[in-house]
């Protein structure tokens, strides 16, 4: 090998090194949650063709994905749309390009500039431009009258959305937000890009517009209400070579139902989501099938009406919090729905106290409940309720898990703290009416978040007047801390603040965490390219563009 370096070679190498440095500066650090060079590429080994039959949830109640809060919409409609950026379908975590092929964040964190792909077309043949992104996000950030978009608070810092040119758009923020939070918000599976013209033609409300055009890998073919939604491969998809399957059939089936379970076990479906634990275990031991579990963005919790004494006393609430045997509660529902033990912050999030530490060290989460119960009794005595409480109304949603838990929690609180409760079991819509009207002492339900980042749900779940703060809980110290967490852009300092927030929540519980939901998926091994084990929730990776069938 020659040591000689001529001028041309030097310039080439210097140029390559310079370009490499520029690219490297844009690439994420190891372990970072975004990767700008990682657009999903077609796999040469993947087989093409066939029909993928996917079973998930009941039919959507309307068609406006932005306005929805259920997987009924996401599960069926997402394959027809793209996002600005997305979670990598290979791990469900890393943020990668989608309709924006790259992005820049200004050093002060107040400008997010997205460079959009050229040549992308909507299913009706129209060109995709930055105007469509602006129309989409204008609607999400400031929904028009009569339109409600649950993800609006994620973009509360956005002050302006500016189209720089047809393929460049800039989001300007009033103040910086943590990058992971902002990128996670843009990558949320709810934020599908819709056409500006579609929004204009429908007055900004798509609730009853069935198949509005997207840019996604699949196109609408037909829909039978509450039965099946059929889509076909989009031959003009911008990501050439994707998707692999020719046809996608999304079957609407109630979650955790025997119907869904039997459909996947008998091979009537190729892939099923939200299956019950019995079916999941059966699938796991069935040759030719795979079963996976992953974390869901839902906490199951008991709310305590802070407007009613003595539940406005933090000592009483902490006593109840400590009296729950959470391992037993997870066990009670093990054949109905998969759950795991956790506290006030997602136990699997990097900012929270790890679940292993909770279970081994923290009162209220340990398997041996005696120390926690002893402390709980002491707190009740200090609060003047050593003899217990009587005639509390426990509002229970008419759902199998909640009914099982309600009886168990009733027994636990009676046995440990002599708290007597009357169960009031009601339908879901009635539960929300009663909860909003404050017609309860305790109430059990589930609440969801769009992101795993605490800044999303610290406002919604625990914020003063937060929409899911059914306990009507307030704690000025916590609210101040939550505001700091929302604005803190340094990960290390943010982690410290979150841990401080956890301490406040432990001492002054806004709710009683019962458990965190898990999702059970199962599929036949002919389905390739999908393994959700590291996914968070069922809302972000639902497009099926990289999934193929080994035998069709």
């Amino acid at each position, binding site marked *: 090998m020659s040591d000689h370096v001529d001028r041309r070679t030097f310039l080439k190498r210097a140029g390559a090194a310079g370009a490499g440095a520029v690219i490297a500066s844009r690439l994420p650090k190891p372990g970072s949650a975004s990767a700008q060079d990682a657009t999903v590429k077609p796999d040469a080994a993947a087989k093409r063709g066939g029909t993928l039959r996917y079973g998930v949830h009941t039919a959507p109640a309307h068609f406006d994905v932005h306005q929805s809060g259920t997987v009924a919409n996401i599960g069926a409609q997402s394959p027809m749309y793209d996002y600005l950026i997305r979670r990598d379908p290979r791990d469900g975590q890393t943020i990668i390009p989608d309709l924006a092929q790259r992005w820049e964040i200004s050093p002060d964190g107040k400008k997010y500039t997205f460079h959009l792909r050229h040549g992308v077309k909507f299913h009706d043949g129209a060109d995709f431009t930055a105007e469509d992104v602006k129309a989409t996000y204008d609607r999400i950030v400031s929904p028009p009258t009569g339109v*409600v978009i649950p993800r*609006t608070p994620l973009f509360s810092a956005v002050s302006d959305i500016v189209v720089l040119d047809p393929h460049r758009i800039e989001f300007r923020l009033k103040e910086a937000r943590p990058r992971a939070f902002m990128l996670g918000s843009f990558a949320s599976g709810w934020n599908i890009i819709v056409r500006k013209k579609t929004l204009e033609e429908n007055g900004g409300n798509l609730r009853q517009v069935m198949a509005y055009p997207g840019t996604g890998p699949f196109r609408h073919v037909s829909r039978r209400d509450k039965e099946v939604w059929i889509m076909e491969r989009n031959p003009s998809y911008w990501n050439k070579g994707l998707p692999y399957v020719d046809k996608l059939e999304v079957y609407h*089936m109630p979650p955790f139902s025997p119907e869904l379970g039997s459909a996947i*076990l008998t091979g009537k479906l190729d892939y099923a989501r939200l299956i019950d634990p019995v079916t999941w275990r059966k699938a796991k031991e069935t040759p030719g099938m795979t079963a996976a579990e992953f974390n869901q963005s839902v906490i199951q919790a008991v709310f305590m009406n802070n407007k009613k004494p003595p539940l406005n006393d933090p000592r009483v609430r902490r006593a109840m919090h400590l009296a729950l045997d959470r391992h037993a509660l997870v066990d009670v529902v093990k054949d109905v729905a998969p759950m795991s033990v956790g506290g006030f912050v997602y136990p699997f999030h990097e900012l929270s106290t790890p679940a292993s530490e909770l279970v081994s060290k923290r009162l209220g989460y340990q398997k041996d409940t005696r120390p926690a119960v002893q402390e709980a009794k002491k707190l009740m005595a200090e609060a003047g309720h050593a003899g217990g409480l009587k005639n509390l109304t426990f509002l229970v949603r008419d759902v199998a898990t909640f009914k099982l838990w309600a009886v168990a929690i009733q027994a636990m609180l009676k046995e440990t703290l002599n708290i007597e409760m009357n169960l009031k079991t009601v339908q879901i819509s009635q539960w929300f009416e009663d909860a909003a009207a404050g017609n309860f002492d305790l109430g059990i339900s589930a609440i969801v978040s769009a992101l795993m980042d605490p800044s999303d749900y610290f406002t919604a779940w625990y914020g003063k007047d937060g929409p899911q703060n059914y306990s009507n809980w307030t704690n000025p110290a916590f609210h101040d801390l939550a505001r700091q967490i929302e604005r803190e852009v340094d990960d290390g300092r943010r982690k410290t603040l979150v841990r401080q927030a956890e301490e406040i929540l432990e001492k002054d519980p806004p709710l009683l965490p019962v458990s965190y939901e898990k999702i059970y998926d199962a599929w036949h091994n002919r389905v390739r390219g999908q393994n959700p084990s590291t996914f968070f929730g069922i809302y972000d990776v639902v497009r099926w563009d990289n999934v193929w069938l080994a035998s069709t």
Partner: protein
Amino acid sequence: MRKYLLRRAVFGVSTLVGVSLIIFVVLRILPGDPLVAMFGLEGFAKLAPGDRARIMEDLGLSDPLPVQYARWMRDIASGSLGRSFFRGDKVSELILHRGPLSAEIALVSMLISWLVGLPVGIVSAFRPNSLPDNVARSASILFLAIPGFWLGMLIVLATLFWFNYKAPLVVVHLWQDPWANLQLVVGPAVVLGLGQGAYIARMSRSCLLEVILEDYVRTARAKGLKEAFVVLRHALPNALLPVVTLSGILMGFVLGGSVAVEQAFGVPGLGRALVVAVIERDTIVVQNLVLLYAVIFVVINVAVDLSYAWLDPRIRYR
């Protein structure tokens, strides 16, 4: 006859108007909010009171009740029956798509109930307190006692775990694929049919026990007629009237029972659509389906009344 028919028609229509009023009022005074189903937990929680009011107005649920009722009656008169206020699907299309499947289940179950119930009843009546009678009576009590949806669940689980079998997932009409259609219909029809067959068997047994003691049956036997001829030609027609009446009533039970049984089998018929609509509080769908069931019940009862004259020539309508 004409007078009788007119009287029955007036009675039937007034019954249906009453039913429609009850359904309409009950659905609107029951607690619960359809917006929960529409927006999901997260979305519903973030609805401001003003947004809720506006959306309820868009759905037509804020109008005065008489206006809403008049609108429903107008939709019925136009034949469209209105639209699901969630997805905007026409209720008439839902009924046309799923109705044939539920109708097949009802008719086949009725057929099964007669095919099983009548022979069992005849054997029991003509051999009272014999072994076949005791077995038949025990079996009929068993099927009376077992809830249809539970038996349905057992059948679904047994076919799944023993034969790895599951019926088709979507509606398949008889004219599209008879074999797939049969797979959808047979399970619910057998469960509902066996339940009704138990009633038919018990009723036909008790009616036949009365009839076979009549003089004309004794005379028929004395003439030396064959036993089968005595049963089928002389005894049975006269014992059938109460059984036919019962079948009409049972048809109502089939309609009601099909809701739970379709759910158990996962058959996408009208019963299942009703369950989902109730859960979603899709008022427009619920009120139309309940009214449809009421119409069918009234029509069947009139048909049963009219069949009396055919079965018993002594009966005349005035």
